[in-house]
């Protein structure tokens, strides 16, 4: 989760050169505006080319960038009167999962999401956005509350996975996630899910069953992290780059596979380059989809969500294979 992206070395070198020239110009008084502008042009060209052809593994690096907007940052920016609520009412309050209510374009909504930190210290306090069962149960409690008061639910996904720990197992990690999948399928209010950064495994899906699932341009979403897949399939975590490619984890892949409904574009260089702009685009996308969903009745919403997930899969009858 570095703040420097390894594949941006050339860009970083150019940036340094530009800064040097600027400093030199200031010190010496020699006018280097032309040279600087030329370099800046070149930098932009390079960046554009680079970001048009990102590999899945490079996208994974961007999705993990610590400067990516967090759930609480997005909540504060897109909601007015946002109020965070705590606790699962049974065991504790999970800092890796946050939620609360507020006005979204004048409409009361419930917002829930994984919470990562913006630096290492904060990340440790947030358990790197990896919830325990009480996190999923807090999310469920808030969703039921939203249902009772007729509020749409917005969930923001950004997790390397549900926490693989002893206590998590003792308190029923599997059951907590499973219960959420079933409850979200039957919830009578609109649910819009946005995959903001990382979407790993059941830990992501545990708040991911929505009428609409949107995904940021450089986010990834899969059954397991590329490292985990490489370790399981080829007994070699260093093959993560290959796994990222073969597992089809990018927003563009998932749109083609029919798993998500829309790719939300990011500012050039990734959401961390211009957080306010990125958040504004996220907001507009959510608004558009919520407007559509508000037209549906409670019953229609449940049917819409059921049918969305019911049809995902890749099966064929071998009897049809025989005919071809």
């Amino acid at each position, binding site marked *: 989760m570095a703040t420097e992206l390894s594949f941006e070395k050339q860009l970083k070198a150019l940036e340094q050169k530009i800064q040097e020239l600027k400093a030199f110009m200031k010190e010496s008084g020699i006018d280097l505006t032309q040279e600087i502008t030329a370099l800046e042009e070149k930098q932009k060209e390079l960046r554009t080319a680079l970001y048009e052809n990102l590999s899945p593994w490079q996208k994974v690096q961007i999705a993990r960038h610590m400067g990516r907007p967090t759930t609480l940052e997005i909540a504060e920016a897109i909601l007015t009167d946002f109020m965070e609520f705590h606790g699962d009412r049974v065991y504790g309050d999970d800092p890796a999962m946050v939620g609360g209510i507020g006005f979204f374009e004048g409409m009361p909504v419930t917002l829930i999401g994984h919470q990562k930190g913006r630096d290492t210290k904060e990340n440790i306090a947030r358990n790197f956005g990896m919830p325990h069962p009480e996190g999923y149960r807090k999310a469920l409690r808030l969703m039921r509350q939203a249902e009772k008061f007729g509020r749409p639910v917005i969930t923001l996904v950004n997790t390397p996975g549900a926490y693989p720990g002893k206590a998590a*197992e003792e308190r029923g990690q599997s059951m907590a996630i*499973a219960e959420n999948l079933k409850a979200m*399928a039957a919830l009578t209010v609109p649910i819009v899910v946005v995959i903001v950064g990382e979407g790993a*495994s059941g830990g992501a899906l545990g708040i991911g069953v929505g009428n609409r699932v949107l995904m940021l341009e450089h986010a990834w979403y899969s*059954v397991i992290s590329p490292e985990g897949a490489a370790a399981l399939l080829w007994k070699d975590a260093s093959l993560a780059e290959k796994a990222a490619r073969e597992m089809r984890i990018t927003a563009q892949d998932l749109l083609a596979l029919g798993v998500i409904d829309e790719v939300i574009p990011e500012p050039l260089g990734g959401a961390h380059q211009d957080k306010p702009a990125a958040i504004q685009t996220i907001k507009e996308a959510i608004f558009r989809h919520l407007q559509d969903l508000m037209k549906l009745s409670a019953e229609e919403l449940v049917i819409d969500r059921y049918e969305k997930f019911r049809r995902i899969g890749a*099966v064929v009858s071998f*009897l049809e294979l025989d005919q071809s």
Partner: protein
Amino acid sequence: MNWREFFTKSKKRQYATLPASSSLSTHKAARSESDTVPDGLMEKCKKCGAILYKKELAQNLYVCPKCGYHFPMSAPERFRLTLDGGVYFEYDMDLVSTDPLSFPTYREKLEQTMENVGMTEAVLTGEGTIKGYPVVMAVMDSRFIMGSMGSVVGEKIARAIENARIKHYPLIIFSASGGARMQEGILSLMQMAKTSAALARFEASGGLFISVMTHPTTGGVSASFAMLGDYLFAEPGALIGFAGRRIIEQTIREALPEDFQTAEFLLRHGQLDRVVSRKEMRDVLGRLISIHQQRGWAHGDGAKL
């Protein structure tokens, strides 16, 4: 050998005569023991090391007579030994994966596994009766790519749930799975949502779902339908959990208790209704279903069932 050849040349040919449109295939499968007991006369108990006659082991429901260790059981055997007379109607035996990601070596692996195991996927679904009560049943088979759930497993289980809902039959799922199938990526993950959504509908209709977790039930299967039963049972010693033991040990850097994530461990932590041994399974299931034939004081709701 491709699927086409497999199904036309192998002894499974009888399946291929079924109509493609039928989601409720009508093959009546009562397989003989010789189909399911592998070659060799003896088997060593993995727990106590006792050398056992395979025939006796089969007669003892694949439970070690010395120590009670529950050997893994194939899905056809489970169907045969759980349902009355060993008779059942199998659903959707014609469904196979399309290898949606064109994942390296997956197609070959599927074909090889089909040949070795004699099943088309990691779950067998169908219906029969227990103690005279009709039931819809799904049984996973850990021999098929670790019983992992990809699109076909998810689809067959969802259809089984829908059949149970339409017919108002109790639903029983025996799970045995390492989790989601890696080779189908995100589509495997989505099967968790699909099966759970089908169960939400089944629940709304008042249906009875009994989940029996057998060794192993982990990852995406434990974190979806396996944990959503009205009643949660497990076989003795079955490994049940979300994350793998090694990953947890690496993460928390401490040794885990020996019985960590066993059925008994889960029972102690309040996550199971009962641990049920294989010998009492049929009786427990029969008794439980019989109790659900009456709806107690809320008799007016009985019509919904």
